[in-house]
Protein backbone atom coordinates (compact mmCIF):
# COMPACT_ATOMS: atom_id res chain seq x y z
CA UNK A 1 0.00 0.00 0.00
CA UNK A 2 1.54 3.26 -1.12
CA UNK A 3 1.45 6.28 1.15
CA UNK A 4 0.57 9.45 -0.73
CA UNK A 5 2.17 12.83 -0.20
CA UNK A 6 -1.15 13.97 1.25
CA UNK A 7 -1.05 11.17 3.83
CA UNK A 8 2.46 12.21 4.84
CA UNK A 9 1.37 15.83 5.23
CA UNK A 10 -1.62 14.80 7.33
CA UNK A 11 0.45 12.65 9.68
CA UNK A 12 3.11 15.37 9.88
CA UNK A 13 0.51 17.93 10.90
CA UNK A 14 -0.92 15.63 13.59
CA UNK A 15 2.61 15.12 14.92
CA UNK A 16 3.46 18.81 14.60
CA UNK A 17 6.38 18.08 12.28
CA UNK A 18 7.46 20.64 9.72
CA UNK A 19 8.78 18.62 6.76
CA UNK A 20 10.63 19.75 3.64
CA UNK A 21 9.49 18.52 0.22
CA UNK A 22 12.41 16.10 0.17
CA UNK A 23 11.53 14.69 3.56
CA UNK A 24 7.89 14.24 2.54
CA UNK A 25 9.06 12.17 -0.43
CA UNK A 26 11.56 10.17 1.62
CA UNK A 27 9.17 9.46 4.49
CA UNK A 28 6.40 8.58 2.06
CA UNK A 29 8.60 5.83 0.64
CA UNK A 30 9.75 4.62 4.06
CA UNK A 31 6.24 4.57 5.51
CA UNK A 32 5.02 2.63 2.45
CA UNK A 33 7.74 0.06 3.01
CA UNK A 34 6.89 -0.28 6.70
CA UNK A 35 3.21 -0.73 5.94
CA UNK A 36 3.99 -3.29 3.27
CA UNK A 37 6.02 -5.26 5.80
CA UNK A 38 3.22 -5.08 8.37
CA UNK A 39 0.89 -6.18 5.59
CA UNK A 40 2.45 -9.64 5.88
CA UNK A 41 0.30 -10.11 8.96
CA UNK A 42 -2.77 -9.96 6.72
CA UNK A 43 -1.69 -13.32 5.32
CA UNK A 44 -2.34 -15.02 8.66
CA UNK A 45 -5.69 -16.54 9.45
CA UNK A 46 -6.86 -14.78 12.64
CA UNK A 47 -10.45 -16.03 12.65
CA UNK A 48 -9.97 -17.87 15.93
CA UNK A 49 -7.89 -15.19 17.64
CA UNK A 50 -9.42 -12.41 19.71
CA UNK A 51 -7.85 -8.94 19.46
CA UNK A 52 -4.85 -8.46 21.73
CA UNK A 53 -5.36 -5.69 24.24
CA UNK A 54 -1.99 -6.28 25.88
CA UNK A 55 0.99 -8.46 25.13
CA UNK A 56 1.53 -9.55 28.74
CA UNK A 57 -0.78 -12.10 30.38
CA UNK A 58 -1.67 -9.64 33.13
CA UNK A 59 -4.95 -8.17 34.29
CA UNK A 60 -6.38 -6.00 37.08
CA UNK A 61 -3.19 -4.31 38.17
CA UNK A 62 -4.77 -1.96 40.67
CA UNK A 63 -3.69 0.28 43.53
CA UNK A 64 -5.50 1.38 46.67
CA UNK A 65 -6.93 4.88 46.80
CA UNK A 66 -4.30 6.10 49.27
CA UNK A 67 -2.69 9.52 48.75
CA UNK A 68 1.07 9.81 48.67
CA UNK A 69 3.01 13.07 48.88
CA UNK A 70 3.33 14.99 45.63
CA UNK A 71 6.49 16.80 44.56
CA UNK A 72 6.70 20.51 45.35
CA UNK A 73 6.00 23.31 42.94
CA UNK A 74 9.65 24.25 42.43
CA UNK A 75 10.53 20.71 41.51
CA UNK A 76 7.53 20.41 39.21
CA UNK A 77 8.54 23.56 37.32
CA UNK A 78 12.25 22.77 37.27
CA UNK A 79 12.33 21.85 33.56
CA UNK A 80 9.87 24.51 32.39
CA UNK A 81 11.44 26.87 29.82
CA UNK A 82 9.01 29.58 30.96
CA UNK A 83 6.94 29.89 34.10
CA UNK A 84 4.70 32.44 35.75
CA UNK A 85 2.77 32.47 39.05
CA UNK A 86 3.70 28.87 39.78
CA UNK A 87 2.42 27.67 36.41
CA UNK A 88 3.92 26.48 33.13
CA UNK A 89 3.83 29.26 30.57
CA UNK A 90 3.01 28.05 27.06
CA UNK A 91 2.79 29.85 23.71
CA UNK A 92 -0.45 30.95 22.05
CA UNK A 93 -2.82 27.96 21.72
CA UNK A 94 -5.19 28.95 18.89
Amino acid at each position, binding site marked *: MAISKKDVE*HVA*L*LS*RLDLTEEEKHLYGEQLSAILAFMGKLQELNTDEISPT*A*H*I*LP*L*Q*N*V*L*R*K*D*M*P*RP*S*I*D*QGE*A*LQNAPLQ*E*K*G*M*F*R*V*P*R*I*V
Partner: protein
Amino acid sequence: MTDSKYEVVIGLEVHTELKTNTKIFCSCSTEFGGEPNTHVCPGCLGMPGVLPVLNKRVVDFAIMAGLALNCQIAEFSKFDRKHYFYPDLPTSYQISQFDQPICKNGYLEIDINGEQKRIGINRIHMEEDASKLVHGGASIATSSYSLVDYNRGGVPLLEIVSEPDIRSPEEARAYLEKLKSILEYTEVSDCKMQEGSLRCDANVSVMPKGSKEFGTRVEIKNLNSFRALKKALEYEVMRHIQALEEGEPLIQETRTWDENKGITLSMRTKEEAHDYRYFPDPDLVPVIISREWVEEIRRNLPELPQARKERFMREYGLPAYDASIITSSKALAEYFDACVALYPEAKTVSNWLMGDLIRSLNAEDQDIRDCRIRPEMLVEMLRLIDNKTISGKIAKTVFEEMFQSGKKPADIVKEKGLVQITDQGEIEAMVDQVIEANPKSVEDFKSGKEKAIGFLVGQVMKLSKGKANPNMVNELLRKKLK
Protein backbone atom coordinates in the same frame (compact mmCIF):
# COMPACT_ATOMS: atom_id res chain seq x y z
CA MET B 1 -40.47 26.93 22.12
CA THR B 2 -40.78 23.89 19.87
CA ASP B 3 -42.12 24.83 16.51
CA SER B 4 -44.59 22.13 15.51
CA LYS B 5 -43.03 21.93 12.04
CA TYR B 6 -39.70 20.78 13.41
CA GLU B 7 -38.29 18.07 15.58
CA VAL B 8 -35.34 18.69 17.87
CA VAL B 9 -32.81 15.92 18.58
CA ILE B 10 -30.45 16.32 21.53
CA GLY B 11 -27.83 14.07 23.09
CA LEU B 12 -25.76 14.98 26.13
CA GLU B 13 -22.21 14.09 27.09
CA VAL B 14 -21.69 14.59 30.80
CA HIS B 15 -18.33 14.52 32.55
CA THR B 16 -18.30 13.99 36.26
CA GLU B 17 -15.24 14.07 38.52
CA LEU B 18 -15.14 11.11 40.87
CA LYS B 19 -14.86 11.67 44.61
CA THR B 20 -11.73 9.59 45.11
CA ASN B 21 -8.84 10.62 47.34
CA THR B 22 -6.25 10.16 44.61
CA LYS B 23 -5.95 10.59 40.86
CA ILE B 24 -6.87 7.82 38.45
CA PHE B 25 -3.33 6.71 37.55
CA CYS B 26 -1.11 8.09 40.36
CA SER B 27 -1.30 8.74 44.11
CA CYS B 28 -1.53 12.56 43.98
CA SER B 29 -4.40 14.22 45.83
CA THR B 30 -7.57 15.16 43.93
CA GLU B 31 -8.43 17.97 46.31
CA PHE B 32 -9.98 20.99 44.59
CA GLY B 33 -7.95 24.20 44.67
CA GLY B 34 -4.52 24.28 46.27
CA GLU B 35 -1.50 26.22 45.03
CA PRO B 36 -0.87 25.60 41.30
CA ASN B 37 1.23 22.53 40.47
CA THR B 38 1.39 21.18 44.01
CA HIS B 39 -0.80 18.07 43.46
CA VAL B 40 1.53 16.68 40.82
CA CYS B 41 4.17 14.00 40.39
CA PRO B 42 6.33 12.72 37.51
CA GLY B 43 3.37 10.50 36.55
CA CYS B 44 0.70 13.13 36.05
CA LEU B 45 3.27 15.57 34.63
CA GLY B 46 3.89 13.12 31.81
CA MET B 47 7.58 12.52 32.51
CA PRO B 48 9.16 9.73 30.46
CA GLY B 49 9.65 6.39 32.15
CA VAL B 50 6.78 6.60 34.64
CA LEU B 51 3.98 4.06 34.49
CA PRO B 52 0.31 4.66 35.28
CA VAL B 53 -1.37 2.31 37.79
CA LEU B 54 -5.16 2.24 37.95
CA ASN B 55 -6.95 3.33 41.15
CA LYS B 56 -9.31 0.49 42.19
CA ARG B 57 -11.89 2.88 43.61
CA VAL B 58 -12.36 4.46 40.17
CA VAL B 59 -13.51 1.07 38.86
CA ASP B 60 -15.75 0.57 41.92
CA PHE B 61 -17.36 3.98 41.34
CA ALA B 62 -17.80 3.38 37.61
CA ILE B 63 -19.56 0.07 38.34
CA MET B 64 -21.75 1.76 40.96
CA ALA B 65 -22.75 4.58 38.61
CA GLY B 66 -23.42 2.02 35.89
CA LEU B 67 -25.71 -0.02 38.15
CA ALA B 68 -27.58 3.08 39.32
CA LEU B 69 -28.13 3.99 35.66
CA ASN B 70 -29.33 0.49 34.67
CA CYS B 71 -26.27 -0.30 32.53
CA GLN B 72 -24.67 -3.58 31.56
CA ILE B 73 -21.28 -3.84 33.24
CA ALA B 74 -18.58 -5.13 30.90
CA GLU B 75 -16.68 -8.27 31.84
CA PHE B 76 -13.67 -7.04 29.91
CA SER B 77 -12.63 -3.41 29.73
CA LYS B 78 -9.46 -1.64 28.63
CA PHE B 79 -7.91 1.81 28.33
CA ASP B 80 -6.94 3.57 25.12
CA ARG B 81 -4.94 6.64 24.25
CA LYS B 82 -6.77 9.53 22.61
CA HIS B 83 -4.28 11.82 20.92
CA TYR B 84 -4.46 15.56 20.55
CA PHE B 85 -2.03 18.40 20.96
CA TYR B 86 -3.14 20.74 23.67
CA PRO B 87 -1.15 21.89 26.69
CA ASP B 88 -3.84 20.78 29.15
CA LEU B 89 -2.40 17.27 28.67
CA PRO B 90 1.33 16.90 29.30
CA THR B 91 1.60 13.65 27.31
CA SER B 92 -0.33 14.94 24.26
CA TYR B 93 -2.77 12.07 24.75
CA GLN B 94 -5.58 11.48 27.18
CA ILE B 95 -5.98 8.04 28.69
CA SER B 96 -9.60 7.18 28.03
CA GLN B 97 -11.68 4.23 26.84
CA PHE B 98 -12.62 3.80 23.21
CA ASP B 99 -14.32 0.63 22.02
CA GLN B 100 -14.62 -1.27 25.29
CA PRO B 101 -16.09 1.07 27.88
CA ILE B 102 -16.90 -0.22 31.35
CA CYS B 103 -20.70 0.34 31.10
CA LYS B 104 -23.16 0.18 28.20
CA ASN B 105 -26.87 0.30 27.35
CA GLY B 106 -28.40 1.97 30.39
CA TYR B 107 -31.21 4.45 30.88
CA LEU B 108 -32.77 6.86 33.31
CA GLU B 109 -36.30 8.15 33.57
CA ILE B 110 -37.32 11.78 33.54
CA ASP B 111 -40.64 13.33 34.45
CA ILE B 112 -42.10 15.46 31.65
CA ASN B 113 -45.50 17.02 32.34
CA GLY B 114 -46.36 14.25 34.75
CA GLU B 115 -45.30 11.48 32.37
CA GLN B 116 -42.25 9.27 32.68
CA LYS B 117 -39.93 9.28 29.70
CA ARG B 118 -36.99 6.94 29.34
CA ILE B 119 -33.72 8.41 28.05
CA GLY B 120 -31.16 5.86 26.93
CA ILE B 121 -27.57 5.91 28.09
CA ASN B 122 -25.27 4.71 25.36
CA ARG B 123 -22.13 4.24 27.45
CA ILE B 124 -20.11 5.27 30.49
CA HIS B 125 -16.35 5.26 30.34
CA MET B 126 -13.45 6.10 32.65
CA GLU B 127 -10.82 8.65 31.75
CA GLU B 128 -8.41 11.20 33.17
CA ASP B 129 -9.35 14.87 33.49
CA ALA B 130 -7.32 17.51 31.64
CA SER B 131 -5.53 20.34 33.44
CA LYS B 132 -6.57 23.90 34.08
CA LEU B 133 -5.48 26.64 31.69
CA VAL B 134 -5.29 30.28 32.67
CA HIS B 135 -5.17 32.53 29.63
CA GLY B 136 -2.94 35.59 29.49
CA GLY B 137 -5.62 37.66 27.76
CA ALA B 138 -9.40 37.92 28.07
CA SER B 139 -10.04 34.69 26.14
CA ILE B 140 -8.10 31.87 24.55
CA ALA B 141 -8.38 33.49 21.12
CA THR B 142 -6.95 36.83 22.20
CA SER B 143 -4.18 35.46 24.44
CA SER B 144 -0.58 35.56 23.34
CA TYR B 145 0.22 32.94 25.98
CA SER B 146 -1.45 30.68 28.55
CA LEU B 147 -0.49 29.26 31.93
CA VAL B 148 -0.98 25.61 32.91
CA ASP B 149 -1.77 24.21 36.36
CA TYR B 150 -1.56 20.40 36.30
CA ASN B 151 -3.33 19.87 39.67
CA ARG B 152 -6.54 18.76 37.96
CA GLY B 153 -4.75 16.68 35.33
CA GLY B 154 -5.36 13.01 36.05
CA VAL B 155 -8.37 13.47 38.33
CA PRO B 156 -10.70 10.56 37.53
CA LEU B 157 -13.70 11.28 35.34
CA LEU B 158 -16.68 9.34 34.13
CA GLU B 159 -18.01 10.36 30.76
CA ILE B 160 -21.69 9.50 30.49
CA VAL B 161 -23.07 9.61 26.96
CA SER B 162 -26.82 9.67 26.39
CA GLU B 163 -28.63 8.34 23.33
CA PRO B 164 -30.10 11.06 21.10
CA ASP B 165 -33.46 10.53 22.83
CA ILE B 166 -33.91 14.07 24.15
CA ARG B 167 -36.48 16.13 22.24
CA SER B 168 -36.38 19.61 23.82
CA PRO B 169 -34.22 21.91 25.97
CA GLU B 170 -36.59 21.22 28.89
CA GLU B 171 -36.03 17.48 28.54
CA ALA B 172 -32.29 18.09 28.41
CA ARG B 173 -32.47 19.99 31.67
CA ALA B 174 -34.64 17.31 33.28
CA TYR B 175 -32.16 14.63 32.15
CA LEU B 176 -29.18 16.49 33.58
CA GLU B 177 -31.01 17.14 36.86
CA LYS B 178 -31.93 13.48 37.22
CA LEU B 179 -28.44 12.33 36.32
CA LYS B 180 -26.88 14.72 38.84
CA SER B 181 -29.30 13.54 41.47
CA ILE B 182 -28.50 9.85 40.90
CA LEU B 183 -24.74 10.50 40.92
CA GLU B 184 -25.06 12.44 44.17
CA TYR B 185 -27.06 9.66 45.80
CA THR B 186 -24.49 7.06 44.84
CA GLU B 187 -21.82 9.38 46.26
CA VAL B 188 -19.44 8.75 43.39
CA SER B 189 -19.20 12.50 42.75
CA ASP B 190 -20.07 15.64 44.66
CA CYS B 191 -21.45 17.09 41.40
CA LYS B 192 -20.63 20.71 42.21
CA MET B 193 -21.26 22.40 38.92
CA GLN B 194 -19.77 25.65 40.26
CA GLU B 195 -16.45 23.87 40.82
CA GLY B 196 -16.60 22.02 37.52
CA SER B 197 -17.05 18.56 38.99
CA LEU B 198 -20.08 18.08 36.70
CA ARG B 199 -19.78 19.42 33.16
CA CYS B 200 -21.97 19.03 30.14
CA ASP B 201 -21.59 19.18 26.35
CA ALA B 202 -24.64 18.94 24.10
CA ASN B 203 -25.14 17.64 20.57
CA VAL B 204 -28.13 19.21 18.90
CA SER B 205 -29.80 19.04 15.50
CA VAL B 206 -33.15 20.07 14.11
CA MET B 207 -35.07 18.34 11.31
CA PRO B 208 -38.46 18.79 9.70
CA LYS B 209 -41.07 16.77 11.59
CA GLY B 210 -41.40 13.24 10.26
CA SER B 211 -38.05 13.37 8.50
CA LYS B 212 -35.95 10.22 8.63
CA GLU B 213 -32.69 12.06 8.27
CA PHE B 214 -31.20 14.01 11.16
CA GLY B 215 -30.34 17.67 10.59
CA THR B 216 -26.83 19.10 10.76
CA ARG B 217 -25.34 18.32 14.15
CA VAL B 218 -23.72 21.00 16.24
CA GLU B 219 -21.83 20.38 19.47
CA ILE B 220 -22.03 23.00 22.22
CA LYS B 221 -19.24 22.88 24.78
CA ASN B 222 -19.04 23.86 28.42
CA LEU B 223 -22.64 24.09 29.53
CA ASN B 224 -21.86 24.26 33.19
CA SER B 225 -25.15 25.19 34.81
CA PHE B 226 -28.73 24.05 34.27
CA ARG B 227 -29.60 27.54 33.13
CA ALA B 228 -26.73 27.63 30.61
CA LEU B 229 -27.77 24.23 29.24
CA LYS B 230 -31.38 25.24 28.70
CA LYS B 231 -30.65 28.71 27.36
CA ALA B 232 -27.88 27.61 25.01
CA LEU B 233 -30.08 24.85 23.59
CA GLU B 234 -33.03 27.20 23.16
CA TYR B 235 -30.79 29.65 21.35
CA GLU B 236 -29.26 26.96 19.15
CA VAL B 237 -32.63 25.40 18.24
CA MET B 238 -33.90 28.85 17.27
CA ARG B 239 -30.79 29.47 15.16
CA HIS B 240 -31.27 26.15 13.34
CA ILE B 241 -34.97 26.74 12.68
CA GLN B 242 -34.21 30.19 11.35
CA ALA B 243 -31.56 28.82 9.00
CA LEU B 244 -33.91 26.06 7.80
CA GLU B 245 -36.71 28.56 7.22
CA GLU B 246 -34.46 30.79 5.21
CA GLY B 247 -32.80 27.95 3.35
CA GLU B 248 -29.40 28.85 4.72
CA PRO B 249 -26.82 26.13 5.19
CA LEU B 250 -25.74 25.01 8.68
CA ILE B 251 -22.29 23.62 9.22
CA GLN B 252 -21.31 20.76 11.46
CA GLU B 253 -19.12 22.45 14.04
CA THR B 254 -18.30 22.97 17.69
CA ARG B 255 -19.72 26.04 19.36
CA THR B 256 -19.34 27.59 22.77
CA TRP B 257 -21.96 29.28 24.94
CA ASP B 258 -21.36 32.94 25.76
CA GLU B 259 -23.24 33.43 29.02
CA ASN B 260 -22.97 37.24 28.97
CA LYS B 261 -24.19 37.75 25.44
CA GLY B 262 -26.69 34.87 25.61
CA ILE B 263 -25.54 33.40 22.28
CA THR B 264 -23.49 30.48 20.99
CA LEU B 265 -20.30 31.20 19.07
CA SER B 266 -18.33 29.12 16.63
CA MET B 267 -15.07 27.86 18.11
CA ARG B 268 -12.48 28.59 15.50
CA THR B 269 -9.66 26.10 15.78
CA LYS B 270 -6.69 25.44 13.56
CA GLU B 271 -7.14 21.71 14.06
CA GLU B 272 -8.61 19.92 11.10
CA ALA B 273 -11.30 17.27 11.53
CA HIS B 274 -10.58 15.23 14.66
CA ASP B 275 -8.21 12.39 14.19
CA TYR B 276 -7.60 11.02 17.64
CA ARG B 277 -5.65 7.90 16.56
CA TYR B 278 -7.01 5.79 19.41
CA PHE B 279 -5.05 2.70 20.32
CA PRO B 280 -4.86 0.48 23.43
CA ASP B 281 -2.58 2.03 26.05
CA PRO B 282 0.34 -0.42 26.32
CA ASP B 283 1.15 0.92 29.80
CA LEU B 284 -2.12 -0.37 31.24
CA VAL B 285 -3.39 -3.93 31.39
CA PRO B 286 -7.04 -4.92 30.86
CA VAL B 287 -9.60 -4.81 33.65
CA ILE B 288 -11.58 -8.02 34.09
CA ILE B 289 -14.72 -7.48 36.14
CA SER B 290 -16.03 -10.63 37.77
CA ARG B 291 -19.75 -10.95 38.44
CA GLU B 292 -18.90 -11.29 42.16
CA TRP B 293 -17.31 -7.84 42.03
CA VAL B 294 -20.45 -6.39 40.42
CA GLU B 295 -22.74 -8.09 42.95
CA GLU B 296 -20.69 -6.84 45.88
CA ILE B 297 -21.15 -3.29 44.63
CA ARG B 298 -24.84 -3.85 43.94
CA ARG B 299 -25.29 -4.88 47.58
CA ASN B 300 -23.77 -1.57 48.71
CA LEU B 301 -25.85 0.61 46.40
CA PRO B 302 -27.42 3.35 48.56
CA GLU B 303 -31.04 4.53 48.55
CA LEU B 304 -31.71 6.17 45.16
CA PRO B 305 -33.93 9.23 44.53
CA GLN B 306 -37.05 7.25 43.62
CA ALA B 307 -36.90 5.16 46.78
CA ARG B 308 -36.32 8.20 48.95
CA LYS B 309 -39.22 10.01 47.32
CA GLU B 310 -41.53 7.14 48.22
CA ARG B 311 -40.18 7.13 51.78
CA PHE B 312 -40.83 10.87 52.20
CA MET B 313 -44.41 10.42 51.04
CA ARG B 314 -44.91 7.48 53.38
CA GLU B 315 -43.08 8.74 56.49
CA TYR B 316 -43.83 12.45 56.35
CA GLY B 317 -47.06 12.47 54.38
CA LEU B 318 -45.60 14.82 51.77
CA PRO B 319 -47.48 15.25 48.48
CA ALA B 320 -45.79 13.54 45.50
CA TYR B 321 -44.84 16.90 44.00
CA ASP B 322 -43.06 18.11 47.15
CA ALA B 323 -41.35 14.76 47.67
CA SER B 324 -40.06 14.65 44.13
CA ILE B 325 -38.60 18.17 44.26
CA ILE B 326 -37.00 17.72 47.67
CA THR B 327 -35.46 14.35 46.83
CA SER B 328 -34.17 15.55 43.46
CA SER B 329 -31.04 16.69 45.26
CA LYS B 330 -29.46 14.47 47.89
CA ALA B 331 -28.18 17.51 49.78
CA LEU B 332 -31.64 19.08 49.80
CA ALA B 333 -33.21 15.83 51.00
CA GLU B 334 -30.67 15.66 53.82
CA TYR B 335 -31.36 19.28 54.70
CA PHE B 336 -35.05 18.44 54.86
CA ASP B 337 -34.39 15.38 57.02
CA ALA B 338 -32.33 17.53 59.41
CA CYS B 339 -35.11 20.16 59.67
CA VAL B 340 -37.86 17.63 60.24
CA ALA B 341 -35.85 15.92 62.97
CA LEU B 342 -36.03 19.23 64.90
CA TYR B 343 -39.45 20.39 63.75
CA PRO B 344 -41.97 17.71 62.82
CA GLU B 345 -44.34 19.88 60.75
CA ALA B 346 -43.01 18.36 57.51
CA LYS B 347 -45.32 20.25 55.17
CA THR B 348 -44.38 23.64 56.68
CA VAL B 349 -40.69 22.82 56.25
CA SER B 350 -41.35 21.65 52.70
CA ASN B 351 -43.16 24.90 51.84
CA TRP B 352 -40.20 27.00 52.94
CA LEU B 353 -37.72 24.77 51.15
CA MET B 354 -39.64 24.68 47.89
CA GLY B 355 -40.46 28.37 48.02
CA ASP B 356 -38.02 30.85 49.50
CA LEU B 357 -35.03 28.55 49.89
CA ILE B 358 -34.90 27.12 46.37
CA ARG B 359 -35.72 30.50 44.86
CA SER B 360 -32.88 32.21 46.75
CA LEU B 361 -30.40 29.44 45.91
CA ASN B 362 -31.29 29.61 42.23
CA ALA B 363 -31.07 33.38 42.15
CA GLU B 364 -27.54 33.25 43.56
CA ASP B 365 -26.57 30.08 41.68
CA GLN B 366 -25.67 28.65 45.07
CA ASP B 367 -25.42 25.06 46.23
CA ILE B 368 -27.49 24.12 49.29
CA ARG B 369 -24.34 22.78 50.94
CA ASP B 370 -22.92 26.31 50.87
CA CYS B 371 -26.14 27.92 52.13
CA ARG B 372 -25.71 30.19 55.17
CA ILE B 373 -29.09 29.19 56.58
CA ARG B 374 -28.46 25.95 58.42
CA PRO B 375 -31.41 23.65 59.25
CA GLU B 376 -31.42 24.68 62.94
CA MET B 377 -31.68 28.34 61.90
CA LEU B 378 -34.64 27.71 59.64
CA VAL B 379 -36.32 25.75 62.44
CA GLU B 380 -35.65 28.57 64.92
CA MET B 381 -37.39 30.96 62.53
CA LEU B 382 -40.40 28.64 62.21
CA ARG B 383 -40.66 28.56 66.01
CA LEU B 384 -40.62 32.38 66.11
CA ILE B 385 -43.63 32.33 63.81
CA ASP B 386 -45.37 29.71 65.95
CA ASN B 387 -44.93 31.65 69.18
CA LYS B 388 -46.11 34.79 67.40
CA THR B 389 -42.86 36.72 67.85
CA ILE B 390 -42.92 37.42 64.11
CA SER B 391 -45.62 37.22 61.47
CA GLY B 392 -45.35 35.02 58.40
CA LYS B 393 -44.78 38.15 56.36
CA ILE B 394 -41.93 39.39 58.55
CA ALA B 395 -40.46 35.90 58.41
CA LYS B 396 -39.80 36.49 54.70
CA THR B 397 -37.64 39.50 55.63
CA VAL B 398 -35.87 37.50 58.34
CA PHE B 399 -35.30 34.68 55.86
CA GLU B 400 -33.79 37.03 53.29
CA GLU B 401 -31.46 38.53 55.90
CA MET B 402 -30.41 35.09 57.17
CA PHE B 403 -29.68 34.01 53.63
CA GLN B 404 -27.45 37.03 53.00
CA SER B 405 -25.70 37.39 56.35
CA GLY B 406 -25.98 34.00 58.04
CA LYS B 407 -27.12 35.70 61.26
CA LYS B 408 -29.45 33.90 63.65
CA PRO B 409 -33.15 34.72 63.29
CA ALA B 410 -33.55 35.92 66.90
CA ASP B 411 -30.63 38.33 66.44
CA ILE B 412 -32.06 39.67 63.19
CA VAL B 413 -35.46 40.23 64.81
CA LYS B 414 -33.80 42.09 67.69
CA GLU B 415 -31.45 44.16 65.54
CA LYS B 416 -34.05 45.23 63.04
CA GLY B 417 -36.90 45.67 65.54
CA LEU B 418 -39.04 43.15 63.70
CA VAL B 419 -40.90 41.81 66.74
CA GLN B 420 -44.56 41.44 65.92
CA ILE B 421 -46.93 43.97 67.50
CA THR B 422 -49.49 42.10 69.55
CA ASP B 423 -50.36 44.92 71.93
CA GLN B 424 -54.10 45.45 71.70
CA GLY B 425 -53.92 49.20 72.42
CA GLU B 426 -51.17 49.85 69.91
CA ILE B 427 -52.99 48.03 67.12
CA GLU B 428 -56.27 49.68 68.02
CA ALA B 429 -54.69 53.13 67.65
CA MET B 430 -53.51 52.25 64.15
CA VAL B 431 -56.88 50.75 63.22
CA ASP B 432 -58.60 53.97 64.30
CA GLN B 433 -56.18 56.03 62.26
CA VAL B 434 -56.84 53.94 59.13
CA ILE B 435 -60.62 54.05 59.57
CA GLU B 436 -60.50 57.81 59.80
CA ALA B 437 -58.27 58.21 56.75
CA ASN B 438 -60.36 55.93 54.49
CA PRO B 439 -64.06 56.85 54.80
CA LYS B 440 -64.82 55.55 51.30
CA SER B 441 -63.57 52.01 52.00
CA VAL B 442 -65.27 52.00 55.37
CA GLU B 443 -68.54 52.93 53.65
CA ASP B 444 -68.01 50.23 51.02
CA PHE B 445 -67.48 47.58 53.64
CA LYS B 446 -70.51 48.63 55.64
CA SER B 447 -72.65 48.49 52.52
CA GLY B 448 -71.63 44.86 52.05
CA LYS B 449 -68.45 44.94 49.94
CA GLU B 450 -66.51 42.26 51.74
CA LYS B 451 -63.39 42.98 49.68
CA ALA B 452 -62.93 46.43 51.20
CA ILE B 453 -61.79 44.88 54.48
CA GLY B 454 -58.73 43.50 52.72
CA PHE B 455 -57.70 46.98 51.67
CA LEU B 456 -58.14 48.31 55.21
CA VAL B 457 -56.13 45.45 56.74
CA GLY B 458 -53.43 46.20 54.19
CA GLN B 459 -53.35 49.85 55.20
CA VAL B 460 -52.91 48.95 58.88
CA MET B 461 -50.15 46.48 58.02
CA LYS B 462 -48.45 49.17 55.98
CA LEU B 463 -48.73 51.65 58.82
CA SER B 464 -47.16 49.11 61.20
CA LYS B 465 -44.41 48.36 58.66
CA GLY B 466 -45.71 44.81 58.48
CA LYS B 467 -45.27 44.20 62.17
CA ALA B 468 -48.89 44.16 63.38
CA ASN B 469 -50.36 40.70 63.99
CA PRO B 470 -52.64 40.33 60.94
CA ASN B 471 -55.28 38.26 62.76
CA MET B 472 -55.64 40.87 65.47
CA VAL B 473 -55.87 43.66 62.89
CA ASN B 474 -58.61 41.79 61.07
CA GLU B 475 -60.57 41.10 64.24
CA LEU B 476 -60.32 44.67 65.53
CA LEU B 477 -61.35 46.18 62.20
CA ARG B 478 -64.41 43.96 61.96
CA LYS B 479 -65.39 44.71 65.53
CA LYS B 480 -65.13 48.44 64.97
CA LEU B 481 -66.98 48.46 61.65
CA LYS B 482 -69.91 46.39 62.87
